[in-house]
């Protein structure tokens, strides 16, 4: 009991104890987890948005055919297994028996086919699947059959990818809805049910344990792979926009888990012996400076390349996360360090002292004539603002004519979609973070792509990078994939479609009463809460 309960009890007695509502049966406190998510859960439909908060919500409600573990291995989750035949051109995935949706209907192969169709257009590995797909069908209730024009060795990786949007399985009747219209009915087959009747948009989202969930019997729980055994009756997401309030609520035990404490408050909560602060995801977040390749000056690869020599990842990451080096890493290339495709190819561009006089000379030699650089800065997100501020300084020290546009993230995402020249409402550069998982391999990494107007904002074009990416998809084994990823990184340092700015680790904080807290992202199975 806390002191305020005594206070409340005393006040209640003083008022005759008649004012409080009758006590209804409540779940035991140790079975209820109160969680502060990174943001409001604006969109529930997990196929329509790339927002991470929606992915985390979806892993409560929905399940995936494959899961990914901490070693980045993909293993069956809803799937019992798969068979690959006809030289890789026919895949048959068999579902585990006994899977049920929250409305009580069984999960069938038809549901999976419709869900995969809905998801595939939005995910880079799904798009590649579509390009190779001849036919996808349900052979019966349990078996999904893929007939491919060309082998797709990464099919399981695609279906188990944690890059947003993930391939969540939903009932066919929902999955048939076009992705331009978000679904609002949350019926999945995941370990928790979404309590729509308790939803207070912008404030509170409630999930209840789904008694009909059947965890797989084999494997070890790790990230989204292995058995999902639930020890909680109820998970409540309480949206708390103010970091100081979130910190205080965690400290006094009103909340159990705060997904993303801000760096400035870390010393405060680390002093509290009842709170554990840890890094849940070794792939962290990678910072990027994105050029607009359509207009001067950054349509000139020599200018972009010259700026690579001005990048001091140390400066960027210090501005983002302070001087505690356990929270960030420099010397980061186009793939997150300590992941399978990270390498030192081309990394000399980031090493050695930063010589701005030489950068100025190189820019002049590359043909820079003082064109205006419109730099978009999202000042409402501290870590993005930090990147933009350092970027502004870097460009100015390199002698560039910078127009620093300080605005909010909503305006940045709107303006960056403009393909107009900078002087007509367009832009030249913006800064952002991607989670390490989003850039973990050449298949999903948008910052290293060169698919022009079909690509990510900035519209980098490079036949060389796209050719290497295609070869990566067809590589026969991991060694060959690694060699190609190495070659891609070297090419990326020459063409500089994007500037890599370092890796930052977003820690999470929870009360010591929690144990076996899953890693990778906020997941709620396996986790125990002491009374």
């Amino acid at each position, binding site marked *: 009991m806390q002191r*305020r309960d005594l206070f409340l009890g005393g006040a209640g007695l003083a008022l005759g104890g008649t004012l409080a*509502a009758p006590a209804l049966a409540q779940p035991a406190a140790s079975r209820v987890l109160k969680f502060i998510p990174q943001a409001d859960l604006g969109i529930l439909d997990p196929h329509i948005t790339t927002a991470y908060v929606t992915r985390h919500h979806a892993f409560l409600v929905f399940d995936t055919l494959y899961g990914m573990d901490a070693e980045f291995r993909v293993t069956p989750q809803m799937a019992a297994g798969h068979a690959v035949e006809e030289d890789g051109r026919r895949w048959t995935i068999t579902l585990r028996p006994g899977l049920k949706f929250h409305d009580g209907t069984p999960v069938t192969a038809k549901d999976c086919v419709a869900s995969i169709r809905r998801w595939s257009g939005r995910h880079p590995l799904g798009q590649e699947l579509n390009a190779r797909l001849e036919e996808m069908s349900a052979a019966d209730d349990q078996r999904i059959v893929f007939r491919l024009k060309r082998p797709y060795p990464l099919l399981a990786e695609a279906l188990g990818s944690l890059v947003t949007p993930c391939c969540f399985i939903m009932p066919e009747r929902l999955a048939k809805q076009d992705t331009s219209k978000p679904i609002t009915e949350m019926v999945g087959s995941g370990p928790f049910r979404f309590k729509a009747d308790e939803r207070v948009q912008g404030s509170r989202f409630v999930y209840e344990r789904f008694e009909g969930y059947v965890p797989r019997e084999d494997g070890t729980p790790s990230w989204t792979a292995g058995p999902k055994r639930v020890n909680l009756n109820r998970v409540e997401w309480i949206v708390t926009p103010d970091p100081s309030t979130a910190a205080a609520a965690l400290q006094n035990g009103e909340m159990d888990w705060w997904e993303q404490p801000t760096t400035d408050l870390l010393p405060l909560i680390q002093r509290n012996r009842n709170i554990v602060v840890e890094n849940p995801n070794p792939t962290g977040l990678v910072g990027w400076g994105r050029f607009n390749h359509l207009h001067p000056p950054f349509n000139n690869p020599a200018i972009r390349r010259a700026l690579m020599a001005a990048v001091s990842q140390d400066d960027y990451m210090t501005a983002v996360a302070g001087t505690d080096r356990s929270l960030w890493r420099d010397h980061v290339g186009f793939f997150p360090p300590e992941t399978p495709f990270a390498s030192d190819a081309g990394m000399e561009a980031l090493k050695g002292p930063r010589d701005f006089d030489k950068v100025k000379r190189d820019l002049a030699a590359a043909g820079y004539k003082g064109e205006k650089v419109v730099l978009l800065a999202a000042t409402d997100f501290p870590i993005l603002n930090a990147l933009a501020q350092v970027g502004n300084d870097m460009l100015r020290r390199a002698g560039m004519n910078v127009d620093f546009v300080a605005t909010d993230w909503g305006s940045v995402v709107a303006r960056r979609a403009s393909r107009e020249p900078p002087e007509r409402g367009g832009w030249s550069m913006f800064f952002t973070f991607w989670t390490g998982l989003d850039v973990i391999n050449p298949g999903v990494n948008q910052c290293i792509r060169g698919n022009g107007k079909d690509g990510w904002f900035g519209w980098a074009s490079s036949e060389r990078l796209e050719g290497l990416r295609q070869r990566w998809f067809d590589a026969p084994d991991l060694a060959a994939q690694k060699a190609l990823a190495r070659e891609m990184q070297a090419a990326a340092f020459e063409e500089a479609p994007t500037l890599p700015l370092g890796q930052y680790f977003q820690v999470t904080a929870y009360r010591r009463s929690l144990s076996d807290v899953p890693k990778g992202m906020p997941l709620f199975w396996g986790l125990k809460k002491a009374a």
Partner: protein
Amino acid sequence: MFAYVIRRVLATIPVMALVALFVFSLLYLAPGDPAAVIAGDQATPQDVERIRASLGLDRPYLVRFGSWVWGILNGDMGVSIFTNLPVTTMIAQRIEPTLSLMILTLILAVTIAVPMGVVAAWKQGTLIDRAVMGFAVLGFSVPVFVVGYLLAYVFALELDWLPVQGYTALSKGFLPWLENLVLPAVALGGVYIALIARITRATMLEVLQQDYIRTARAKGAGQGSILFLHALKNAAVPIVTVIGIGIALLIGGAVVTESVFAIPGLGRLTVDAILRRDYPVIQGVVLLFSFVYVLVNLIIDLAYTLFDPRIRY
């Protein structure tokens, strides 16, 4: 009187129409794209374009405005671009916390500020007067969020008497409701108390110089009777006016207070909607706030007749 009320109610129609036109046009001209926010940072321009088309955001200004106004006239404020929930449902979910916070703050402020102002005027130039005026300056100068953090630190973290954040519906009990609202109401009430206390003091000082007060004293009326029956009633019109104007302060302050104390009210709904460019929600909430403001002004105008019989409508 009745004819006056009808006239005033009718006069709100063009006011609300102007507000609607202004809000819609401002949002239309403001930078930002909800489709881009929905699609997320990692989306491609094609994804954003598809969502924009599906939401009808690529339609011309007049078509969008006409469709919105037609909806309003039919009692339909539209559907949130993000959540797909009707705006009326979202407002209904959020109105209780905001209303609770504003009413509690209003009661707290009037209960504290009016006696403070009266006593300060009565004891003009004394230590009590200086203390009240000092408090008023402090109330005006310290931002709501600073007061909020301080209160949360002392009463929630250090003393553990009250919760840091959240809201409990009144239907779940009066004390749990009050427990969540005490700190936010005190934080929000600071500036309001300061404003009312200062106006009360200034008006009371003027009234206390009047001949009829001297007459009352000469007739042997007690100090309490002079202050609260004779003087305060005659000083009420400016005080009530300021209380009414202060509703606008409360609406603005509620936005910050609700964020600091994580109260799921209309203020937070507005901020979230603005950051996401959720146009139907912004338009709905601003219209509602405007309507409340017009209504409060009408009530205040009518209240004048209670305090000053010379006023007739």
